């Protein structure tokens, strides 16, 4: 699917990038000290910090990934919105004020505050790096998806562009410029997402949505042709291969793929092979997504459309059992010659099914149930364990300000997540879903309302990536320069050397992020972020919680917890079905186990490791008395 960049979109994009770089230059002069570089001097106002939290947190995963997932899977995508927001409750009630009290620059500072343990410094810094890299991959991937339609550039160019800009932001002014970039982006994202949602509600629902225009002005919306096997034969199609529900037909030398539905109809699907797309070398995949039937309206009325709807009215229409929404899924099939095809096929679901969990996250078998609980557990406990979120607590002057900024964040982020449901469903019913890459659903929805809104929304989405990546790179560079070099290796860096080391580390992490962003192209960004949450929840949160609430926690217990959390969560992910079916190029059935989400095993294991190791490494009473005397 290629739309190409318009002069307007390029101008608006260039304006945003210039603004971001100006902010970095402006604040660079003020970030000479380590406190200035890593924590913005601890003097950011709580309200600004709250919106910056939103800017930091509402990443490509939220705006691009969740909207894309809702657009293709319905309510299942909204589960991420619920879980991501609920995680802030853990941050507010349990983590915010203690983090501010205990730490200085990094997550490691806080967990190590009571112990001054080199082991904790090492493993907490490694955990920060692992989580940050897991989180960076989808952000960079999302940036690549954005520049393709926005600027007409290849995916890899977008990834490199983000990498270069963010390295510039972070290495010039650290946390201060990062904060104001996030504040700006968070505010704009909320405003324009509200405008986009309003436009969706005013347009209402119709079985004949307006189509996106192609470069030549012709409508692009793909409305799949419905037929039967007999009708195809009469029309001159020759069946050459059958693979499950998919059949390959050839007519006049042209390949077509059709999928049979439960009623015996066959639907013409879109397809892609290594050399061709929809039958042509370099051909196009067309945008999809429409409502086939609006519950409570006859066919004529549904074609005319409902007109403007209230938010509740919009959701109620889509939930109606007679509503039929055309979801698009993809499958890999191999033909008689051994050629591999990716087939994109339509599947009509009722409003009842569209608006409840179960398309992706099924809960019928035991493993499916475990996967679902595991996902919700990771989302809930992951937020308060994300290093780039935790370091924002050091940018405000007091624990009370940390609390208030978290509440501003909950209000802003909660409001945004409510909007994701409307934007995702809007994309699903307005023909603005790229079947091969649903990450662009929200920006393409904006395009259906005109080029100006598209250009602004896309530029904001790009800024979204910039803000989050900048925060992640600050966290990662702090882990390298402050935790590993200065405190673990005890290199005795001066304030200026610590800032310089942070900038070099930012450059290195940025390069790694660029490479991984290119490698992981095409996977839903929110899905990938779900894994980052799982690793953070398993590796970091047990240590934070037990440190605060269990007096017998020891340094060795914390080290064990973090190590077990990282190894268990990454181990389960890397040997699980999603990696086998995705990056490994194998099938899900070949995976070592059927668990896609590691939280349900990795989080309890991490807690268990902490408790067991802490109990066996308790100081004897005499040692405790000596330690108490030494510390006063």
């Amino acid at each position: 699917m290629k739309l190409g960049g318009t002069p307007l979109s390029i101008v608006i994009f260039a304006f945003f990038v210039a603004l971001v770089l100006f902010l970095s230059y402006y604040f660079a002069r003020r970030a000479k000290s380590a406190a200035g570089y890593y924590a913005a001097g601890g003097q950011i106002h709580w309200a600004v910090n709250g919106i910056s939290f939103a800017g930091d947190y509402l990443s490509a995963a939220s705006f691009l990934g969740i909207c894309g997932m809702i657009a293709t899977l319905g309510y299942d995508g909204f589960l991420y919105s619920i879980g991501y927001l609920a995680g802030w409750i853990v941050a507010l009630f349990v983590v915010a004020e203690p983090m501010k009290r205990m730490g200085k620059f990094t997550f490691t500072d806080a967990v190590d505050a009571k112990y001054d343990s080199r082991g904790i410094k090492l493993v907490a810094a490694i955990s920060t790096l692992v989580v940050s890299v897991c989180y960076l991959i989808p952000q960079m991937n999302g940036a690549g998806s954005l520049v393709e339609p926005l600027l007409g550039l290849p995916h890899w160019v977008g990834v490199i562009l983000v990498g270069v800009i963010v390295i510039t932001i972070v290495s010039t002014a650290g946390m201060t410029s990062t904060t104001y970039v996030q504040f700006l982006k968070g505010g704009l994202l909320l405003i324009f997402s509200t405008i986009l949602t309003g436009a969706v509600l005013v347009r209402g629902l119709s079985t004949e949505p307006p189509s996106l225009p192609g470069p030549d002005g012709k409508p692009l919306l793909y409305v799949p042709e419905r037929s039967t096997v007999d009708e195809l034969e009469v029309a001159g199609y020759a069946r050459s291969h059958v693979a499950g529900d998919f059949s390959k037909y050839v007519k006049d030398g042209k390949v077509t793929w059709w999928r049979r539905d439960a009623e015996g109809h066959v639907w013409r699907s879109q397809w892609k092979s290594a050399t061709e797309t929809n039958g042509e070398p370099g051909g196009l995949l067309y945008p999809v997504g429409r409502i086939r039937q609006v519950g409570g309206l006859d066919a004529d009325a549904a074609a005319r459309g409902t007109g403007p709807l209230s938010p509740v009215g919009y959701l109620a229409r889509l939930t109606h059992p007679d509503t039929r929404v055309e979801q698009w899924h993809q499958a890999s099939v191999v033909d008689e010659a051994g050629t591999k095809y990716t087939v994109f096929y339509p599947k009509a679901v009722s409003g009842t099914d569209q608006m409840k969990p179960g398309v992706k996250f099924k809960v019928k078998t035991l493993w499916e149930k475990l996967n679902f609980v595991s996902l919700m557990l990771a989302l809930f406990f992951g937020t308060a364990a994300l290093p780039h979120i935790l370091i924002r607590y050091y940018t405000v002057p007091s624990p009370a300000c940390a609390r208030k900024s978290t509440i501003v964040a909950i209000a802003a982020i909660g409001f945004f997540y409510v909007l994701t449901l409307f934007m995702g469903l809007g994309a699903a019913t307005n023909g603005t879903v790229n079947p091969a890459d649903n990450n662009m659903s929200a920006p393409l929805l904006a395009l259906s309302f005109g080029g100006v809104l598209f250009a602004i929304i896309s530029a904001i989405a790009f800024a979204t990536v910039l803000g989050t990546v900048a925060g992640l790179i600050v966290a990662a560079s702090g882990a390298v320069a402050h935790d590993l070099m200065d405190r673990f290796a005890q290199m005795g860096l001066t304030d200026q050397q610590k800032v310089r080391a942070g900038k070099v580390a930012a450059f290195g992490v940025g390069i790694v992020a660029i490479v991984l962003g290119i490698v992981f192209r095409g996977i839903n960004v929110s899905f990938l972020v779900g894994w980052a949450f799982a690793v953070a929840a398993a590796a970091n949160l047990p240590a934070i919680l037990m440190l605060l609430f269990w007096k017998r926690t020891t340094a060795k217990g914390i080290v064990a917890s973090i190590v077990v959390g990282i190894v268990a969560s990454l181990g389960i992910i890397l040997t699980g079905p999603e990696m086998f079916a995705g990056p490994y190029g194998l099938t899900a059935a070949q995976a070592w186990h059927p668990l896609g989400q590691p939280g349900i095993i990795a989080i309890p294991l991490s807690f268990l490791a902490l408790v067991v190791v802490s109990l066996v490494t308790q100081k004897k009473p005499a040692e405790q008395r000596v330690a108490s005397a030494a510390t006063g």
Partner: protein
Amino acid sequence: MLHGPAQDSGPDPATGYKGRIGLVMFIVYCVVYAGFVFVNVLTEGRAMQIIVLFGLNLAVVYGMGLIVFALALALVYNHLCTKKEREVAGGNAGKGRES
């Protein structure tokens, strides 16, 4: 103004009180959140499709409700914490007990 050293906010006598109500509210939200997860798992999704309010099903109402409930709890928590902080800052009787 922006780049002085990270500030030491000093001792906070309300810490104990804030920690306790934070923990209680955290547990309350956990229970409500777990309810959402387990209703879906135990009924295999069937309960989620029941229309409960204004034509909306349980999945939508409960999901939106979790978002709104989080904000409501956060505001109540902030109100209680701020009230306590003012009390202890004013040196009233609660000061000694909460530190």
